[in-house]
């Protein structure tokens, strides 16, 4: 079945590793939604969170191809695992009227996101939500306002500690 899937990767923190991983996806026509990378508690190791859209067979192949790379230390498949996933998103809305601003404050309240900056005719929203929730917010802003500027960081994910924290937090509303 074709769907979004999450992989976390531990890789060597070295020059060219990011290029190698992303090159695998382009070279083999795998469909990558997002990729984030940063160093870990061990500075010689980086961790990537990759979201891919694929069917089951392709996804198995992706994991195998990643695993056989010398620079990849560990591949973790988060499909069907309870995880915490968040993505940082800044949304700047420009050319706002007074009514627009009021509405944006309401939207921020409902979405539980922060209004982190404001000017005479613009507002900056700072969001830390699931990718899906961020998508919903972007769709809403696009439908309501003409001038928006979006920058988003791609999701980061980590396995849940308490499995009781209900299924997949990717689907948590907040």
């Amino acid at each position, binding site marked *: 079945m074709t769907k979004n899937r999450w992989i976390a990767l531990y890789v060597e923190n070295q*020059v060219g590793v990011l290029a190698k991983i992303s090159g695998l996806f382009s070279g083999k026509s795998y469909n990558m939604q997002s990729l984030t990378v940063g160093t870990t508690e061990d500075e010689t190791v980086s961790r990537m969170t990759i979201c891919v859209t694929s069917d089951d067979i392709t996804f198995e192949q992706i994991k195998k191809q990643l695993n056989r790379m010398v620079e990849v230390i560990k591949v973790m498949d988060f499909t069907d695992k309870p995880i915490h996933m968040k993505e940082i998103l800044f949304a700047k809305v420009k050319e706002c009227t007074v009514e627009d601003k009021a509405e944006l404050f309401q939207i921020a309240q409902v979405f539980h996101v922060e209004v982190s900056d404001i000017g005479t005719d613009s507002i900056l929203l700072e969001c830390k939500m699931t990718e899906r929730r961020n998508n919903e917010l972007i769709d809403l802003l696009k439908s309501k306002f003409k001038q928006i500027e979006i920058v988003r960081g791609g999701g980061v994910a980590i396995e849940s500690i308490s499995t009781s924290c209900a299924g997949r937090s990717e689907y948590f509303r907040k």
Partner: protein
Amino acid sequence: MAMDITGRKLFVKALLEEGVDTVFGYPGGMVTDIMDELYKHEEISLVLPRHEQGLVHEAEGYARATGRTGVCIVTSGPGATNIITGLADAHYDSIPLVCITGQVPLNLIGNDAFQEVDIVGMTRSITKYGVTVRDRKDLGKILKMAFHIAKTGRPGPVLIDLPKDIQTAMGPGEYPLSVAIRGYKPNESVHIGQLKKGYKLLKSAKRPLFLIGGGINIARANDKMLELVEKTRVPVVTTVMGKGAVPTDHPCYVGNSGMHGRYAANMAVGECDVLFSIGTRFNDRITGDLNEFAPKAQIVHVDIDTASISRNVVVDVPIVADANLALEKLLEWAEPQQTQEWMEQIQEWNQENPLEMRRDRGMTPQMILEELNRQLQEGIIVTDVGQHQMWATQYIELNEKKQFITSGGLGTMGFGFPAAIGAKIGCPDKTVICISGDGGMQMNLQELATAMAQDAKVIVCIFNNYYLGMVRQMQQLFYGKRYEATCLRRRKGCPGDCKGPNAACPPYEPDFVKLAESYGACGIRVTKEEEIAPAFEQAKQCGTPVLIEFMIATEEIVLPMVKGGNPMTEMILK
């Protein structure tokens, strides 16, 4: 604590500790220090080719023939880019190479310096591992990693990009005995449960079949494979790369399967009920239409590379293992199976459509290859890529004394001749025969000088049909004989709508006999069947490399043939 030494000294120390006695090197500004260091070491012989593409194929031929790692040294920029085709070739066919490319000094990287290219970036998808050495203290570890990674697991090419200043910088003198790489754990065991499951399936089969790929030859597990076949009496088909896994005259050996496979072999794959495959990745040239591949069979797949399993063909029993280990276990369990009836069926198919070329149109490749089979009792046969390669995979007979080397995965024209030189350098006591086409031969002609310089007495058989025959065959069959860009006699004045050879055709160039002679090699031209055997006799007497040009019928085609994407049982036979 050993004393600090230069990078170039450590490099040569590493070669010596790895037991390297032959390197393939072409000089240039960014490897002069390494070359200078090699000058001091008589125990390592340096082979100087005439082009870096020749160099990397020579290293491949050396590695394929000896089973050892081929070592290449080229300079930065064009030296490095010229080996790219060979790296891809080695990557596809799982050949261990360690390639050192010189690089501009660290502080110039990124400046578009003279002869600077990002060779690690360019080759990322066609090397098993590639890295630029950025710190002299890492050099020993990186070299050790390179040799370890190239040779273990599924072998492959490794590229080390070595900046000039690292070569001269002082640093630790130790070359590590071993290296632990946390992200690299080649499979060194076999899952007994899975293997047992696979064997049970094989045993339960009424029409069992082994499909053997290059993995057996790479693992040098031919003896064990033969033993398994003898114990079980299960018939065997091979891929192009798997040819020679068992002797071709063995009663259980059916032939090659695939696009130009034997009729009986493709029919057997189509009709078998259990397909037990080892060391093949089910390439499209083997499977044809995936939905119609082995439609009646449950499939067992043994491969050392997890990523090769269930990629092209979904298999019923996947087994990740080195072929040697898997065969050892299988041999413990193996029992004779009732395959008499099934073998008779395969025999019937063979009689229905045997491999045979018509004999009424002059000298055929079959005649040449059959004579070669008679002449060559032991040795190495290397091919280039094209029609002659397919004919060779069909007609060459192999046993434990004969080895077959070919560019299977990438299909690199220009591979054959340099690879044969490399094989001869690695195995100087063996007879090495190169079979090439007139097209492929012209892609690395310059290596005639290398063969002379290295006293590599290879016998090159050029099948000259005046055409780039494999493509012309497609034009002949599927494109209404519109021979665009495939006629090697064609000149500017030729008619645009030419449909094949006629009396007005211009002469062929080059004159291969004169060309060989201009290098001091021996050139022989053979135009009819009676001359074949004497030509081989004459070639054996020559004290130099020999080039035999066989003038074969121009419009000969490789049959059977399956059109790309069609089911393998739909063969063009005439």
